[in-house]
């Protein structure tokens, strides 16, 4: 019977991860990994393996809703997936065997906590203003619009900073291959800080993209025997149901509130990375 209770506990935690992930534009590893390790005593490598496969479920579930409702900017997603997939390959194949993940976690944690500053500065901003397309965004026709259910009108927006965003996406790929979590958070940062699109577009487009990054990174975890199917099954199920529910909430939230939820997730992942780097968890 304990195995069954264990199953239900994982299901519940993953449900929460799916809701948070679909609102913030991340996969939900921020909830899943600490619950599996700290509360259930699982080895962190297996927790990350379960998380990375389940990110695909969050991404596909939430992504399918946002892309159908035309919130996702698929041109941004498709173009920047090149950088993130390349990063995932380099991270997993070339860097992973040579880099110590402890100082990498510390470095990543510090970077995330530092990026809280520009996000906090954007608090109170509902829609970006005065954004001018950069050359690449114009040539790639990345501008977009979506219908905002809360503002009850069509919102058109411009896109900038594509070179910087590509660098962020490349880094997101490397991080997903090396550390297993945090790829979504870097993608949202690329949207918020570099491309300056509305937060709903950040969340939706990041959610859409992380499935591909996770699929690329999951190969390594599957090959190394770090994926536990009995754990993935309840995690993926919980996360998917949570993600579908989360999309209903997200579409009715303000851009500003979504950014605030993201800031909390950013702080949590930054903190977790520091603790991991110093060997606390």
């Amino acid at each position, binding site marked *: 019977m304990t195995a069954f209770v264990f199953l239900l506990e994982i299901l519940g935690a993953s449900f929460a991860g799916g809701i948070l992930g679909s609102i913030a534009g991340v996969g939900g590893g921020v909830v899943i990994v600490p619950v599996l390790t700290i509360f259930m005593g699982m080895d962190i490598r297996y927790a990350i393996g379960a998380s990375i496969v389940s990110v*695909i479920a969050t991404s596909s579930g939430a992504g399918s809703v946002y892309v159908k409702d035309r919130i996702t900017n698929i041109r941004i997603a498709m173009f920047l997936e090149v950088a993130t997939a390349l990063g995932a390959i380099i991270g997993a194949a070339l860097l992973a065997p040579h880099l110590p993940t402890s100082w990498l976690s510390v470095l990543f944690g510090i970077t995330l906590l530092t990026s809280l500053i520009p996000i906090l500065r954007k608090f109170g901003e509902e829609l970006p203003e005065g954004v001018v397309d950069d050359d690449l965004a114009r040539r790639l026709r990345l501008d977009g619009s979506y219908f905002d259910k809360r503002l009850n009108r069509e919102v058109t927006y411009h896109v900038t900073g594509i070179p910087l965003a590509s660098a962020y996406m490349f880094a997101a790929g490397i991080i997903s291959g090396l550390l297993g979590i945090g790829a979504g958070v870097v993608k949202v940062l690329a949207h918020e800080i570099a491309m300056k699109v509305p937060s709903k577009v950040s969340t939706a487009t990041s959610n859409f993209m992380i499935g591909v990054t996770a*699929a690329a990174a999951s190969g390594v975890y599957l090959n190394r025997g770090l994926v536990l*199917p009995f754990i993935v099954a309840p995690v993926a199920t919980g996360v998917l149901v949570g993600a579908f529910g989360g999309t209903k909430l997200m579409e009715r939230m303000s851009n500003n509130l979504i950014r605030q939820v993201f800031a909390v997730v950013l702080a949590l992942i930054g903190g977790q990375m520091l603790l991991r780097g110093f060997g606390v968890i």
Partner: protein
Amino acid sequence: MAVEETTNVPVEPLRHEDRIAIEDVSSWVLRIGVIASVLILLVGLVISFAHGGITKHIMETQTFDLNFGRLRHGIFAFQGFAWLEFGILVLVFTPILRVFTAMVLFAFEEHDRLYTAVTFLVLVMVLGSLLFIR
């Protein structure tokens, strides 16, 4: 003039409706893929728990170990663990299938060479990382 206008007006939106939108196809691919994979995973869980003998220890130690022959046999023999592995494979290939269908639509529906090339590149890299990295 008036007749010409009324006959011209409906043509434009109709043509637009006929176009297969990449957004809609992506949405369906993702939705069908992820729901199918979770259902397969649940079948795996139900079979495993119905057979009994599943402990927390087994859940935390039995790892994904792909062997296509064994997997195919296991699926037809209704072995819980084989269904779990099958569900994971369907899950992993869902976003990859989404990239593939987008590539096909960019090529044949939108006639957009740049984005056909972009999605092709992504597809090659993701499949490469999945198949060749060990």
